[in-house]
């Protein structure tokens, strides 16, 4: 097995690149198409949604902002890890690499252990077209109409009688509505606010006969959540994959470093490129789902 593949470590003179670097760029091109396909799906569904059926302000913006900052910092530390290797400062490299991993893990913890469980607690109830008038006091559609804003067709909040979702004998949903529906004609509620306000203490009873569809904020709740959870979990999987690779380099790196530091350096560079890409995807996810 002493056959060697050329240009695994050093660059080929006429292309100026080593193999893995081309490989990763190609792989990222395909990743662009993958996320491109998902985002086009998002655009397609959003453009096709009937007025009022594409929700806004459903996600926790401060948490999203925090996570954005964490991920961007981790990209910076990843670059620093690579730069330290280039300068052959191995302990520095270990430090930055560890920092990158910590930040990445933090991102996942915030997302999976806090943000999503909070989402799953909330619930939304779509009102039938012909029953909208009945719930006008909570929807404020007259008011929205007069201002030229799209109507509200859904009431959100936290469900008091959880069994209503599964038990066909329960006739109505008792919903602790979100602040917006407690005071629907307040201009402050025209747009989603940066900080998520706690649910109001108002409980609205919604008759099941008036309801199109009700569920917690699971992927199936609407196409918005479908897109969000699909793209965000795929993104989280990428973060997870990156963390595994980084951890591998951190743990076993010293062996390769002693043998061929440039090789390790290349590997970290390639994994870093992947990491930046994952970061970039998040830079799209955040505004598209949290802000717009």
């Amino acid at each position, binding site marked *: 097995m002493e*056959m060697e593949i050329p*240009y695994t470590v050093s660059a080929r003179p006429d292309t100026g690149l080593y193999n893995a670097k081309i490989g990763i760029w*190609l792989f990222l091109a*395909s990743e662009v*198409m993958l996320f491109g396909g998902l985002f086009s*799906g998002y655009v397609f569904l959003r453009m096709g949604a009937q007025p009022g059926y594409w929700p806004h302000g459903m996600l926790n913006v401060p948490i999203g902002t925090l996570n954005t900052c964490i991920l961007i910092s981790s990209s910076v530390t990843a670059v620093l890890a690579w730069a330290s290797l280039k300068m052959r400062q191995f302990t520095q490299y270990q430090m930055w690499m560890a920092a990158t991993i910590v930040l990445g893990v933090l991102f996942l913890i915030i997302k999976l252990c806090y943000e999503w469980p909070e989402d799953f607690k909330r619930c939304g109830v779509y009102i039938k077209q012909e029953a909208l008038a009945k719930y006008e006091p909570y929807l404020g559609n007259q008011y929205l109409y007069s201002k030229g804003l799209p109507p509200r067709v859904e009431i959100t909040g936290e469900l008091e009688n959880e069994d209503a979702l599964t038990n066909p004998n329960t006739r109505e949903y008792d919903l602790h509505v979100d602040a917006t529906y407690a005071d629907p004609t307040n201009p402050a509620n025209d747009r989603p606010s940066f900080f998520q306000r706690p649910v109001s203490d108002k409980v609205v009873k919604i008759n099941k006969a008036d309801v199109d569809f009700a569920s917690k904020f699971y992927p*199936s709740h609407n196409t918005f959540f479908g*897109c969000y959870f*699909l793209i965000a979990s795929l993104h989280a999987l990428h973060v997870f994959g990156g963390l595994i690779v980084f951890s591998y380099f951190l743990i076993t790196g010293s062996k390769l470093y002693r043998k061929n530091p440039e090789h390790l350096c290349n590997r970290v560079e390639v994994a870093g490129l992947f990491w930046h890409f994952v970061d970039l995807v998040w830079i799209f996810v955040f505004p598209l789902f949290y802000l717009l």
Partner: protein
Amino acid sequence: METSTAIHSHDPHDPHGHGDHAEHHDLGFWRTYVFSVDHKVIGIQYAITGLLFLFLGFCLMMMMRWQLAYDGKPLPFFGPLLARFVKNGGMDAGGVPGVMTPDFYNSLGAMHGTIMVFLGIVPIAFGAFGNYLVPLQIGAPDMAFPRLNMASYHAYWVGGVLMLSSFFCPTGPPKSGWTSYSPLADLMDKQAGLIFNGQTIWILAMVILISSSLLGSVNIITTVIQLRAPGLTWMRMPFFTWTQLITAFLLLLAFPPLEAGSFMQLMDRVFGTSFFLPHGEVFNNQLVNVSGGGSPLLWQHLFWFLAHPEVYVLILPALGIVAEVITNNTRRPMWGYKAGIYAVMGIGFLSFVVWAHHMYLTGMGRVVSTFFQTTTILISVPSVIILTCLLLSLWGGSIRFTVPMLFATAFLPEFGIGGLTGIPLAFTSTDLFLHDTYYVIAHFHYIVAPGTIFAIFAGIYYWYPKASGRMMNQFWGKVHFWLSLICINMIFMPMFLQGMAGMHRRGFDGGKTYTLSAPALHWNVTIAHAAWGLGLVQFIFIFNFFWSMKFGRKVGANPWNATTLEWSAPSPPPHGNFVGPIAAYRGPYEYSVPGHPVDFVPQADPQGPRTDAGALGH
């Protein structure tokens, strides 16, 4: 550029020179034959697996053709046998063992399409030929990422086996065509459980197969960019390698959107989302309990965004094989080599902007339809250019009709028929009549069956001696060719007539329901017999294939007097491929160079005229 030693000398300082040290004995059976990282072994693994799938796909179709010809009659012998093994009762309609149910027909159709495209042709044309030949043709010791290469093959067969496992689901294999249109594919067969049902397995298997193709294409592209031997400039690269390179780009960029679509369909099926389900969706006369708000057309866009480039994935490697075989057997350079390459690039680019020509009847406005009609017509131009190049390459040749050449020459008019019948499909107004009739089936089968499959046969007969060191039997090769040619045309030619009569595809009873198809109904019997004939004829090939491994005539490194680099390696090439350093000194097809005593000059021969006929032509 400068490596001046003769081919067989050994330069210890050159990395390529390590090839001949590589010995197999230290690797053991598993690492040599199963988990090998040698591109040639992987190529052969791909070839054998792919051929088995191809044959399986054909067997499913032979059963379907029985049903179309003899609706309601039990399939002799195999039918009752299958009735016992197929768990979902697909082969005992009305309690008669061996009679096919409509559901099972639909399953077979979906599996035929899927197997042929994703498990048969692509793995053979790209996985097998690409893997085996690209490193050899560019003078590389192996692929750039050998381990990735192995992973890609193993993902492939795992995906394939998973796909086949759907035959053992309680509700049988997927039933909504290879196109898996939602909402049918979203909602069907859910009673069988969330995961172990045909359609969900189809999605999971597709995701694995897509990943396998992605690994393969990253590998091929990197290999071609990085590992070309000294002197092998872009315009000295064999046409075959060019087609593989462009094919790899198509796979790399077109597959991921389908992966995205597959994830969405998976979510729809497993988590109850409604990416592809509109408001008020009804199934089995019941409102479906989903939020709605999705779009059935979104799936079609994502699917065809892949599937149109995919069909060029099926044809480009075939064109590459045919170009190699034709130049070799006409004994002259490829006419219009450069124009051909630009045309391949043009096809590659345009294939990303024509996908909606499969969706003309989904309610397309004037502007969109004009766009897609125009791009579809544009893409036929580079195809015509390539075909013209190949056709004109024959002129002035000294044509030897070897078995590979027979298949390659037959390819030209057969591809012509398939390609030309694409033209009326390309226009909305004529597609209005032809859409989803057997005319479409005939159109694309002329391209993939007597087209791509023939090219694959040509390639197998042509490179068999390289891979095995032995020649396949030429006489039986010729018998195989002529009988296959007759049968395959008898299968697909009548389908044009059926389509024109208004017979639609995917009809379980072969169009008996409709009086429209009555005048063309009798062809179903002819087609069935021709298909079984074709099936029988393949045993000549299979026998020849295995018999020649042991008893075929032994040959040297270059039995066809060919020029490209792979023929400068021993047959079969050792681990690491070339004995001594390798370099290219001229264009790929320097046959019959004026003033040269023999009618070919290998690319790797440092002596002889340094010509680049590729620069000629137009």
